[in-house]
């Protein structure tokens, strides 16, 4: 018989080579027709000829479930042995698929070569990796449990390989006769080799299965002992695999807990006395032997001996491994660091007191932290080990940095899951808390800047994955505010933030938080190192709308020259400079103002030239051409306004506005522009003391319009005057206030005449209202007059205008302005208030007081606040009357009892409406009155119980 033990050993060397060959997916050089039966499957699998495999399985008439099982196994093998290494998830999925389908596959097929091939792919593609982790880091229940099914599958496959190969070998042996011996012997040898290989590999692989059991489990010991017994036959030079077998035997003794036996075998590999092991152990085997010797000492609780052996291992590595072999040296250094970590943890467990335990544990974690820094590619494995030792329900703030880093890493892996995978939000939340804790510990031991940087960045990404997009964007902006040194991370954060904010703006751009985020991200994105200048226009416009004109100018200047909005950018830059000049409170130096005006001139020229060209460009759509014409019109207005108000050149203003209404007759928004130009013309004429020309200018314009258009122009002009007046008031520009008030009064007088004489009854009916407005305009002029005597005279005139409005004729006109159904009793409350207020301004309090009292008593002026969609707004006539009544009382009444109701009402109003009583227009006056009559009064909170 050929089945002699000696021959078995000699073919083992061939068998190990066969395993290596089987693990490769390269096709053989033989033709497919040369293969017998099931052997075709392994060949089709190797060649990844999936359609042919499908066809073959179909022809074999295999049941559908078996066909599906074989197909699943083959697909998984392709994944595991692909030229591009699979991702961790792909690897796990493939292994799970093989484990799930292996029984059906074994039942369906009989090719021992195919079974051995699957086992080999599993060992190389999955088991060795996890077994290696268990060997280096020690038992891990989770990893052991996940590895066990695969280890069992491998044993099952190798048993089946042995069984099928032996069966086929024996069948061939039975057919051999002298006539066919030469032909059949190669086939016999093939199956015999396969059977031997399967048996050998099975016993070597039993080690992996043993590793998956707890050290105290009887299965672990049983598997190890059986393997030791079966492998013993190969522990001799004839096998050609003696060093590998000896090493595995040593490890198997370790697994079964027989440490002296393990040490003895391992020492023989390390030292190879008298060259007894053949072939001689290679460097890797010698290293492993020394390494596991330390492990054996440690597991045997000889911790001092283990530490000494560890030192010896390090010394040996430094001398035996050539310095230029950096890969081997680095690998050895990492392995010994892990071993030192385990040793420190074992020492910590064995330490007698809590302080020593903690100190050793800290030392161990520091070592790991250093290892992560030195070998980032080991991070996943190290963090997985750290997580396995994480105490349950441990507070985040009590965890070591390495544990926090491991949690963050775990969350990072979780967040990268695909859309069809179930997300573990608890893992994400835990990682988020860990990342925040790491950021908090910036600068502390074992918390490197790189660690904080990545944790901070991931904090944002984790929040995003948890659908907390606003928080994510805020966090990423906080991260960017630290000016991270890692530019790649910074750019990633910036891109993500912009995408998040864009997404949030699509949902609700008016949301307060989203607006704030947008405001925050823009300047960071536009600035270095990101230089996203395409966002400069948008940000500059926002700054301009917020009144930050100079800031807006600097961003308008960053709009790229090829941006399609560049003409608009120049226009708004010009406008922003003018707005800054308009709102200046004397802070700008003369030189600076001169430079700003010069900038406006330059921009006026640029915008006019560019926008005029664009408005005539036939390739520009008609609508845009019109928009450019409007832009030119606006630019002329800015230039004219600047000349009038910032260069004191009213003549230039008039020159610029010559024929404005005809030049821009077809520009959009023409009515508004013409009104603006009209106001500037009137103002320019008035600055030149050309009142007649001002009126004439207005009349000549109105004469070209129908009645309704004329009224519209005047109304718009008055609105513009009021708006400018309020702006001047906010800026405390007294001179401008007086100028505008005078223009307003002049215009209103003209308005009354124009309306009263107008043939159109629809215009004439507004005459009474224009008169009321005119009286108010004159009262305002009187109030602003700086000369006291002239002011009194003007105020007396205003009073007379109001009193005239109470005449029977005017009263009749007043009643005609009322909407049907309105209370018609009494005179016009606004006129009565005007009379009272003029008397008040003339300090005729005794006359003002009863008029004001009657108005308020009848609630003719409405409530203190008027509801609106934006919340209640202050009713100015009410507050004016109330203030003047209380002030008049205080001026007239000198006895405490007599003044008590006035004091009580003022207190009541403060209690009800708070310190801003009367709103911006009246609060300072009320406050002055309060200091005068109830100086000690304090408002208390309404929320105190």
């Amino acid at each position: 018989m050929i089945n002699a033990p000696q021959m078995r050993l000699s073919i083992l060397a061939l068998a190990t080579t066969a395993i290596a060959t089987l693990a490769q997916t390269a096709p053989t050089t033989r033709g497919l027709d040369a293969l017998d039966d099931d052997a075709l499957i392994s060949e089709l699998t190797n060649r990844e000829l999936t359609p042919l495999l499908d066809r073959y399985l179909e022809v074999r008439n295999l049941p559908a479930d078996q066909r599906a099982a074989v197909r699943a196994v083959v697909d998984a093998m392709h994944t595991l042995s692909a030229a591009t290494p699979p991702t961790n998830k792909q690897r796990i999925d493939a292994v799970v698929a093989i484990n799930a389908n292996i029984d059906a596959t074994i039942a369906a097929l009989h090719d021992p070569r195919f079974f051995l091939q699957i086992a080999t792919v599993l060992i190389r593609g999955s088991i060795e990796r996890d077994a290696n982790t268990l060997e280096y880091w020690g038992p891990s229940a989770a990893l052991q449990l996940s590895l066990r099914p695969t280890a069992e599958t491998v044993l099952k496959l190798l048993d089946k390989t042995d069984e099928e190969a032996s069966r086929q070998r024996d069948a061939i042996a039975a057919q051999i006769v002298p006539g066919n011996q030469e032909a059949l012997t190669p086939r016999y040898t093939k199956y015999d080799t396969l059977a031997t290989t399967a048996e050998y590999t099975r016993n070597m692989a039993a080690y992996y299965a043993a590793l998956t059991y707890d050290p105290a489990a009887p299965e672990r010991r049983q598997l190890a002992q059986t393997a030791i017994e079966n492998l013993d036959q190969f522990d001799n030079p004839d096998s050609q695999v003696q060093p590998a077998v000896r090493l595995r035997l040593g490890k198997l003794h370790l697994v079964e807990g027989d440490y002296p036996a393990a040490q003895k075998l391992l020492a023989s590999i390390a030292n190879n006395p008298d060259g007894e092991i053949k072939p001689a152990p290679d460097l890797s085997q010698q290293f492993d032997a020394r390494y596991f010797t330390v492990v054996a000492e440690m597991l045997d609780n000889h911790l001092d001996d283990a530490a000494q052996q560890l030192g010896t291992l390090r010394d040996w590595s430094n001398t035996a491994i050539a310095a230029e072999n950096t890969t081997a040296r680095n690998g050895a250094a990492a392995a010994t660091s892990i071993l030192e970590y385990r040793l420190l943890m074992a020492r910590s467990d064995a330490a007698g007191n809590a302080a020593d335990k903690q100190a050793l544990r800290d030392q161990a974690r520091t070592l790991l932290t250093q290892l992560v820094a030195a070998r980032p590619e080991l991070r996943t494995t190290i963090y997985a080990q750290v997580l396995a030792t994480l105490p349950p329900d441990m507070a985040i703030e009590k965890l070591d940095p390495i544990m926090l880093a491991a949690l963050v890493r775990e969350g990072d892996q979780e967040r990268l899951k695909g859309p069809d995978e179930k997300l573990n939000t608890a893992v994400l939340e835990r990682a988020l808390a860990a990342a925040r804790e790491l950021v908090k510990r910036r600068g502390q031991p074992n918390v490197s800047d790189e660690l904080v940087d990545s944790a901070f960045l991931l904090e944002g990404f984790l929040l995003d994955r948890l659908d907390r997009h606003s928080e994510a964007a805020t966090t990423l902006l906080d991260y960017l505010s630290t000016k991270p040194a890692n530019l790649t991370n910074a750019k990633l954060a910036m891109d993500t933030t912009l995408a998040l904010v864009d997404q949030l703006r699509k949902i609700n751009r008016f949301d307060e938080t989203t607006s704030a985020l947008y405001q925050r991200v823009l300047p960071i994105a536009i600035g270095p190192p990101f230089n996203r200048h395409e966002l400069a226009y948008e940000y500059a416009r926002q700054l301009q709308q917020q009144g930050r004109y100079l800031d807006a100018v600097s961003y308008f200047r960053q709009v790229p020259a090829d941006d399609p909005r560049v003409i608009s950018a120049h226009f708004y830059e010009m406008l922003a400079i003018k707005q800054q000049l308009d709102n200046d409170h004397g802070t700008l130096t003369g030189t600076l103002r001169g430079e700003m005006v010069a900038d406006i001139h330059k921009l006026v020229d640029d915008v006019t030239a560019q926008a005029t060209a664009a408005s005539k460009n036939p390739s520009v759509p008609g609508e845009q051409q019109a928009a450019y014409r409007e832009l030119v019109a606006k630019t002329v207005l800015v230039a004219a306004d600047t000349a009038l108000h910032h260069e004191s050149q009213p003549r230039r203003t008039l020159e610029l506005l010559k024929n404005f209404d005809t030049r821009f007759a077809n520009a959009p928004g023409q009515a508004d522009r013409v009104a603006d130009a009209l106001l500037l013309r009137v103002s320019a004429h008035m600055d030149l003391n050309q009142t007649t020309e001002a009126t004439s200018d207005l009349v000549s314009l109105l004469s070209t319009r129908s009645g309704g258009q004329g009224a519209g122009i005047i109304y718009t002009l008055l609105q513009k005057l009021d708006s400018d007046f309020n702006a001047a008031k906010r800026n405390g520009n007294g001179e401008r206030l007086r100028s505008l008030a005078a223009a307003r009064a002049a215009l209103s007088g003209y308005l009354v005449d124009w309306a009263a004489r107008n043939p159109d009854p629809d215009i004439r009916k507004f005459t009474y209202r224009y008169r009321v407005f005119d009286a108010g305009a004159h009262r305002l002029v009187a109030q602003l007059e700086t000369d006291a005597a002239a002011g009194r005279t003007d105020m007396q005139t205003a009073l007379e205008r109001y009193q005239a409005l109470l005449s029977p004729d005017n009263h009749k006109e007043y009643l005609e302005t009322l909407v049907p159904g309105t209370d018609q009793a009494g005179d016009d409350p606004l006129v009565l208030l005007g009379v009272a207020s003029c008397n008040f301004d003339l300090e005729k309090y005794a006359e003002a007081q009863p008029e004001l009292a009657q108005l308020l008593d009848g609630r003719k002026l409405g409530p203190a606040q008027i509801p609106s969609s934006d919340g209640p707004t202050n009713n100015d006539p009410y507050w004016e009357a109330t203030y003047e009544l209380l002030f008049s009382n205080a001026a007239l009444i000198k006895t405490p009892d007599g003044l008590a109701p006035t004091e009580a009402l003022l207190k009541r109003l403060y209690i009800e409406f708070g310190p801003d009583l009367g709103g911006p227009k009246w609060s300072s006056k009320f406050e002055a009155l309060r200091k005068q009559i109830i100086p000690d009064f304090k408002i208390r909170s309404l929320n105190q119980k």
Partner: protein
Amino acid sequence: MKLNIARNVHYESGPNMTPLVDIVMVILIFLMLAGSFGGAEHFLTSNLPLAQKGLSNAPPPPGWVPDEPLEIRVDPVGDGFRATAGVIRASDAATLTLQLENMRDQFNHAGTATNKIQVIIIPAKNVQYDHLIKVYESALNAKFEKVAFATAHD
């Protein structure tokens, strides 16, 4: 169910209706209001007639000041409401009661007697009745004596 408002109501005149002021009564008041929402501006009395106001022929004496009403505007906000009266901003009955009571207390200490303060509740058109009930109750619980309703505002 009885609302805890009867004991807080003070009547200046008329028959004592206290036993009848229960939830049914309050609901009736609001049903009446419903028919008036959006109509001409006038007050609908609840427990008290409003003081008659208007210009009288005799001029008020020097030092005279008007009795100002305290207006509580009620607007719907989501499923809830917001009551506004001067600086008061409340979205629940407890807060409103607290703020109104503190306001009334401060008014009294500042020299304005409670019976000089006419509280007017002005609901927006689509305010739910049960929110108006809460506001009404809050005013009474804050020990205001004159509480009236005005027709709805826009």
